[in-house]
């Protein structure tokens, strides 16, 4: 039983990991087919992972409503919004538009989800600006550099900024395409080295936390 519960999952990880790593080095149609199939399989399994997440959220809000905890009515709003969208979406076969005409599912998307999402992210601009005001004051040389770079990029992204400081457009592009690119590249190399090391640890069973705890 110990083999089935602990060692077989590790063996599955090792075999699938080694096979998929080897697949990259085999330029054969069968190898390409394997990659296509496995990618499709991962998408299907990912759908079930979504079920896990949604069930958890369902459970949290259901218990809030059942116990009439503070703010339970908002959980009810969440349920109504979710179930309403699901019913409308399934009714329209998941299509937002048919022959160019908006379906009721597309209507929910355009007049509910888009404004909600857009405004929710838009108000972050105010919070970022307020956080910046508090933390960006040029108290050190590094903070001053950060502040200047941020101001130049912000000015370079809008016509008014370019009108006030004509060089800001070119300077902004240079900062983004050269200085920012070099830092992103360095971070990407570092993160990738870490990801490769972690992948080796997973394949060879050194890293096992993804299997979870609980009974052996």
């Amino acid at each position: 039983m110990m083999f089935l519960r602990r060692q077989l999952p590790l063996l599955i990880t090792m075999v699938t990991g080694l096979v998929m790593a080897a697949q990259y080095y085999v330029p054969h149609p069968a190898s390409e087919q394997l990659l296509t199939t496995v990618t499709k399989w991962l998408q299907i399994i990912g759908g079930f992972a979504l079920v896990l997440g949604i069930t958890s959220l369902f459970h949290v809000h259901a218990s809030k409503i059942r116990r009439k905890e503070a703010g339970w009515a908002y959980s009810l709003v969440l349920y109504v919004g979710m179930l309403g969208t699901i019913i409308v979406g399934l009714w329209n076969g998941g299509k937002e538009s048919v022959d160019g005409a908006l379906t009721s599912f597309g209507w929910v998307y355009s007049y509910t989800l888009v404004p909600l999402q857009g405004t929710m992210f838009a108000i972050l601009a105010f919070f970022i600006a307020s956080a910046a005001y508090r933390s960006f004051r040029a108290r050190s040389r590094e903070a001053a550099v950060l502040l200047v770079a941020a101001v130049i990029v912000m000015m370079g992204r809008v016509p008014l900024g370019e009108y006030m400081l004509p060089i800001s457009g070119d300077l902004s592009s240079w900062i983004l395409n050269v200085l920012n690119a070099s830092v992103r590249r360095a971070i990407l190399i570092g993160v990738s080295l870490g990801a490769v090391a972690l992948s080796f640890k997973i394949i060879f069973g050194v890293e096992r936390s993804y299997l979870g705890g609980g009974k052996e």
Partner: protein
Amino acid sequence: MDLSFDVILGAWIATGLTLFILSFLYEDNPLFKLAEHLYVGVSLGYTIVKTYDTVVMTLIVHPILDKGEWSLLIPVAIGMLMLTRYVPKAAWLSRYAFAFIVGIGAGLAIPRTISSFILKQIEDTVRPLLAAAPGGGITFDYSLLNPASHLNGIIILIGVVSVLFYFFFSVEHSGPGKAVARAGILFLMISFGAAFGYTVMARMSLLIGRLTDLIEFSDASYGRPTLWLFLLTVATLIVLSRRGNAHPPKQ
């Protein structure tokens, strides 16, 4: 301009939800919470429907029923194993599903990450510092506006090396190493500043989009929802504020 009922209704709902969320800029209030929970519910419902359409119907049901691809029952079975987490006695079976996903992910990541994110990035960083001129001899491109110029190539090389060195803790950052690490910090600060500025402007762009809609929906053809719902939101906030003052929360 004659607008259909669904467009007018949509304009009223979109305007109301936009104003409810913007009301958070004043303070946290029930209108914002209502819109916030509706946002979570609707986006969740949307994700469920899209997943049902793209995964269940497109990847499972249609290929099995129309093309007889019965092998697709294997990932379905593996996916079902994930759901055993809800049955304590059989929860260990879900490890097979996680082992499969993590194993494949790790296997796919190793060669692709090395190739695309390490070797390719190093290749693009370590470029020739000079180029052969068409008529013979050598040339050096000083243009800062061309990211591929030789001068920018040197700047990128210095940036990548100094930032990598800054995160390399196996040697002490002293002497010349300290200067390199300092250069790395400066590059990092410029990058963080650029990322900040870029994010703020992206959010501003979203805000402009929402305000454009509010201006459009203030038109008489929609029934001026922006005006009426703005007054309603302000009135509600005043009432809620007064009620809050009359019944302060218990300490």
